[in-house]
């Protein structure tokens, strides 16, 4: 990436400041992509150099939000990796359906596309009514969107294709109403969601779940932090609960590996305690 220079020392200084002054701890994140994110921010903001970034962070009210928003990669999709959602639909939901209540945690849910995808699956499996979806993310800005249930209309074509590839049989557009350039998803989904900020680095377990999804979040963490977070998930899962990670993530090397067995050969889904 072209643009102002960012040294390793600059990055360390920024991470220290974010932690000491604001309590955001990014020190155990993978460095190479953090560095890219900060360079990208400086370029997008047309900053002259690192000292300007640092100055603004200290003196401008809303700048922290901007920095946190850029450091945390909030890119997401509905039905991302359709074969994963197909496995949920065909193999996991029928098991969840046998429970009187279903509690699901989306950790690092970004703007909620994954949560709405799940709500649609639950409804099609006939168990949305008895389900609750906890949607959490470090970044408060993206959480707001979950309450609104609004997504860019321009994406719907792609999402509809993903939905069909995941085994969806309905007309995807029946789930939302199009207004200007937005697609607003029906309020019955939102009613089943609880959205809140939760930092996987510093916050603790807050409930027991039958299914936890944390996809494409661990890739940003170093191995030690991954291990801590996977332990948190282990502590937050019921016996025989499911854990789903991103398509290139693995719990094989973590200390909790022995508590889980792989549930699907192709998809990154594990089950606790068998």
């Amino acid at each position, binding site marked *: *990436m072209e643009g102002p220079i960012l040294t390793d020392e600059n990055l360390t200084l920024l991470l220290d400041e974010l932690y000491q002054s604001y309590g955001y701890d990014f020190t155990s994140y993978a460095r190479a992509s953090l560095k890219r994110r900060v360079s990208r921010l400086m370029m997008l903001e047309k900053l002259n150099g690192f000292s300007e970034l640092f100055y603004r962070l200290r003196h401008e009210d809303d700048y922290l939000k901007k920095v946190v928003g850029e450091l945390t990669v909030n890119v997401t999709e509905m039905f991302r990796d359709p074969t994963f959602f197909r496995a949920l639909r065909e193999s996991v939901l029928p098991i969840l359906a046998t429970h009187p209540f279903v509690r699901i945690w989306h950790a690092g849910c970004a703007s909620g596309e994954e949560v709405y995808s799940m709500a649609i699956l639950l409804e099609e499996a006939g168990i949305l009514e008895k389900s609750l979806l906890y949607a959490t993310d470090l970044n408060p800005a993206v959480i707001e969107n979950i309450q609104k249930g609004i997504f860019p209309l321009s994406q719907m074509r792609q999402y509809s294709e993903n939905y069909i590839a995941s085994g969806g049989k309905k007309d995807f557009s029946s789930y939302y109403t199009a207004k200007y350039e937005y697609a607003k998803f029906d309020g019955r989904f939102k009613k089943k969601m609880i959205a809140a900020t939760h930092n996987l680095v510093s916050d603790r377990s807050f409930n027991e779940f039958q299914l936890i999804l944390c996809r494409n979040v661990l*890739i940003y963490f170093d191995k030690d932090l991954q291990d801590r977070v996977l332990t948190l998930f282990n502590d937050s899962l019921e016996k025989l609960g499911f854990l789903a990670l991103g398509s*290139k993530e693995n719990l094989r090397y973590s200390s909790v590996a022995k508590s889980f067995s792989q549930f699907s050969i192709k998809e990154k889904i594990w089950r606790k305690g068998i």
Partner: protein
Amino acid sequence: MAQRHLRKFKAIVVGGSAGSLEIVLKIAEALPLAGIVCILVVHRRNDPDSALAHLIAAKSKLKVREVEDKETIAGDVIYLAPPDYHLLVETDVNFALDASEKVHFSRPSIDVCFESAAAIYGDALIGVLLSGANADGAAGLKMIRDAGGFCIVQNPATAEVPYMPQQAINQDAADEVVDGGEIHKFIVEMLQRNTPIRKQN
């Protein structure tokens, strides 16, 4: 221009887009077991069955891995950037993946991978950019060159789609422009001698 000197190459990164597959396979086939780390970033459709990895593995003496999160980096292995993630060299022993925005409409982006590899390997890196219809790769290759690495660009006249290699040449990112059918030989010879080769003059 960086001074040319004897050195030990540790790694080679190859970026390709439309029209690059045949040359990618030739390179994979020709690479010797010499302890080198080979990283491939090829634009392709999401391919959950890893067909490309299998295709390469069938040709190469090296092991082939589609990279997973925090994968350890070892010599004599060809690492393939997985579809829909950016691949970064995090340290000289670890990769990292990143699901952030596409760069030049691409994920994986060649620029992103090349830039991170340049930062880690410096002058021990060979960068190769092949055929493609995309501006991705040129800026990253320039960074490899600026960090002292040696950069090979496919001769656009021999590329199925000349745009991508031409961009790299325009941005002064090429140490050497080589015909598509010769690139694999050129690389092998360079690895054997452990020194950059000047083809012309």
